């Protein structure tokens, strides 16, 4: 104490300037003012789930597919593609900035359809991206730099949580249009049309192509048609986020219907695709970003600018996942295996939805649970309120996000009964 102070005083007196700087240097950190970042809400759910010792616990938080045993599922077409690729002993040379050409071509065809006029006239450009997030980020950066006539991006209310910070960080401003109707747990069609009809011209409008995240509520084809007309009238720039093609209905063409319809109607869209869920390639980060242009010459110009955006972020994309996806899409037997397997995943989800409702009825619930079946894709907006969600977690060890969203992929034939029982207990 005292000795230390005298010692320091002595030194300080004689070596003042140097010591001052040394003290500053050795005692302070550059990061003293850095605040602790808020915990990720979804990851927080998983953390709490992991700590729970209840054997009946269920994790309905994270959006990754699970099989009927609750296990991660590696598609057999993926394993086969991997074996095929390994046998070729390929090198590991850098991909072009825009990614693997074969992948980009197959990725675009998958979304737009093989007979797409856009593809035939070569008036679109598709670049390989770091899954869906990376695609959205490149798109956001592209809009920020080149879509200078408008700064606003309109998201459906609600939308995927990460949309907002991505666009905001890129310099865009976020607005919303009505989408989910909590009264019906369905689509607020009139609200959406009303809001969209008032969006300032040339603004960007984000549309979830299928299996809306987080609600699972998709417009019906007739509703998409009306939306397209209003969007066209308002001269809005459409940005489709398609993270679940094939995964929603089990049919890749059906799930891409909205995107293809909009293109037929003359919208020049931006499109983000992810292969995380529909090919189970989550950690390999496989995605695409497409810009539909006026003509091939413009597509070339846009391509050159996309490369300029990509290079200072990560230079060029990772090979492994894109190679797997490309192999699957362009090898006939693998492609048909994939179509079966993606249908299998979608069918299991649909079955769990049906079983959940059946079991809720069996439990004696008199609520209308039709929305659980009407909603589509990995997620279901149950309509549960925060207090009910909290009870589910505390009393039954069922983990989900506070907005009442469950990942149906986390439901199995083994635990659907327990889930129905738990939900009934907190809602009766």
């Amino acid at each position, binding site marked *: 104490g005292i000795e230390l102070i005298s010692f320091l005083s002595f030194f300080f007196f004689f070596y003042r300037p140097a010591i001052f700087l040394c003290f500053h*240097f*050795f005692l*302070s*950190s*550059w*990061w003293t*003012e*850095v605040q*602790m*970042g808020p915990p*990720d809400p979804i*990851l927080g759910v998983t953390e709490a789930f992991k700590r729970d010792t209840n054997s009946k616990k269920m994790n309905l938080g994270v959006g*990754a597919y699970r099989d009927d045993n609750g296990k991660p*599922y*590696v598609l057999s077409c*993926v394993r086969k593609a991997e*074996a095929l690729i*390994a046998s070729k*002993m390929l*090198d*590991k*040379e*850098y*991909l*072009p*900035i825009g990614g693997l050409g074969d992948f980009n071509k197959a990725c675009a065809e998958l979304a737009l359809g093989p007979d797409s006029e856009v593809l035939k006239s070569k008036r679109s450009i598709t670049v390989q991206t*770091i*899954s869906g*997030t*990376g695609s959205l*980020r490149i798109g956001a950066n592209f809009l920020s730099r*080149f879509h200078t*006539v408008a700064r606003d991006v309109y998201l459906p209310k609600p939308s995927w949580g*990460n949309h907002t*910070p*991505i666009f905001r*960080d890129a310099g865009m401003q976020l607005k919303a249009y009505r989408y989910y109707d909590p009264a019906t747990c369905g689509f607020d069609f009139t609200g959406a049309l009303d809001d969209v009809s008032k969006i300032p011209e040339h603004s960007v409008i984000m549309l979830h192509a299928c299996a809306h995240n987080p609600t699972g509520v998709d417009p019906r084809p007739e509703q998409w048609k009306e939306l397209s007309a209003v969007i066209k009238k308002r001269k809005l*720039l459409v940005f489709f986020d398609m993270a679940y093609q094939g995964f929603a209905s089990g049919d890749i063409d059906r799930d891409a219907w909205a995107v293809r319809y909009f293109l037929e109607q003359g919208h*020049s869209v931006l499109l983000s695709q992810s292969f995380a869920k529909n090919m189970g390639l*989550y*950690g*390999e*980060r496989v995605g695409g970003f497409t*810009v539909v242009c*006026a*003509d091939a010459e413009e597509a070339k*110009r846009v391509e*050159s*600018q996309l490369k*300029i955006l990509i*290079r*200072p*972020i*990560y*230079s060029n*994309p*990772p*090979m*492994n*996942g894109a190679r797997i996806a490309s192999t699957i899409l362009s090898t006939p037997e693998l492609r048909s295996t994939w179509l079966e397997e993606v249908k299998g995943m979608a069918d299991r989800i649909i079955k769990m939805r049906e079983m959940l409702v059946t079991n809720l009825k069996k439990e004696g619930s008199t609520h209308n649970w039709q929305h659980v079946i009407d909603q589509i894709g990995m997620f279901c907006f149950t309509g549960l309120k925060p207090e009910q969600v909290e009870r589910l977690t505390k009393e039954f060890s069922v983990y989900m996000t506070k907005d009442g969203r469950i990942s149906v992929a986390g439901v199995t034939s083994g635990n659907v009964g327990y889930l129905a029982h738990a939900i009934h207990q907190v809602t009766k």
Partner: protein
Amino acid sequence: IMSIFGEVPQAAPVAVFKLTADFREDQNHSKVNLGVGAYRTDECQPWVLPVVRKVEKMIADDHSLNHEYLPILGLPEFRSSASKIALGEDSPAIKDNRVGAVQCLGGTGALKIGAEFLRRWYNGTDNTKTPVYVSAPTWENHNAVFSNAGFEDIRPYKYWDAGKRGLDLEGFLGDLESAPDHSIFVLHACAHNPTGTDPTQDQWKKIADVMKRKSLFAFFDSAYQGFASGNLDKDAWAVRYFVSQGFELFCAQSFSKNFGLYNERVGNLTVVAKDQDNLNRALSQMEKIVRITWSNPPSQGARLVAITLNTPELFAEWKDNVKTMAERVLLMRAQLKEKLKALGTPGTWEHITEQIGMFSFTGLNPKQVEYLVKEKHVYLMASGRINMCGLTTKNIDYVAESIHEAVTTVQ
């Protein structure tokens, strides 16, 4: 049709990739590509490291592995083993629990995350005006990484002395002295790209002294550890010295070259902080940045590197593979110099063997470079940078003769 993108201009192609594209189209059978920085064998072929093939097969055969998302900050065993490579197994900073890391998409990705973090959090919460210094010359993407991260004031620091074909230490130290306190300096840990000229240990000490005195931030770019001298520890000396001097620093590591994993995008941003608390807060903010950039990193390459670094026999085999590459480069350097001397090519060519790593700044001027590309079909960067890996025992005579011709024909 009226298009939203009607006004989008055609961007210039990235020079180094355009060079390779031009090389590919060239029909001349004497052509040599001394452009892109990737290792080539003496048969001028890409080389997948034997240890990489081995581990790839291990991964493929392990059906307990799946393709689930990695954590946002990446594969834990990759991050920690990669940081150990940079800082040393026995690093006191690691023992003090004040070293963390973010798995990133290659060295570029590591620079990106580091830059984005610094712009937000380094010296106050808005560092758009904080000067960022990059060496003159430097890797052409450094500028874009930092400016795209929001830094508005990117300046060169003197580095390459074209006259003496070596390090301009006085100029470097002078720029350090005149830099505003707290400026950020991007330092090449070893095998400077593009000059191949590194400070000596004594010179690094002088650099560190000034940086410490002026509270300048050290952001190391380490893309060639092991590849430069053939020895991992030797190549990491500068980074470790700075850590031993108490610096908080970033080290953007790439495993593209030393593992030959170019297209798997394996990188690591090593963060050294004063203590664990500061480290954790910094990492939590980096997580937020990662989430809005790529969400979480690709798993294949990180798995491969982690398994290799954490398995003693594989680690030894890897070090051996790295040595093989480094030694071939050293051999080509020695032979090129010999041949130029034998030809009596005007000028001094000592720098060919004094420089280190993949690249050599030949000192050839743009006109001479143009001559080489157009007349001799020897492709190199306009700066005079050559990739030594593009040289083989089969083409080195042709290249030496071509350089001789260029130097004697074009002034």
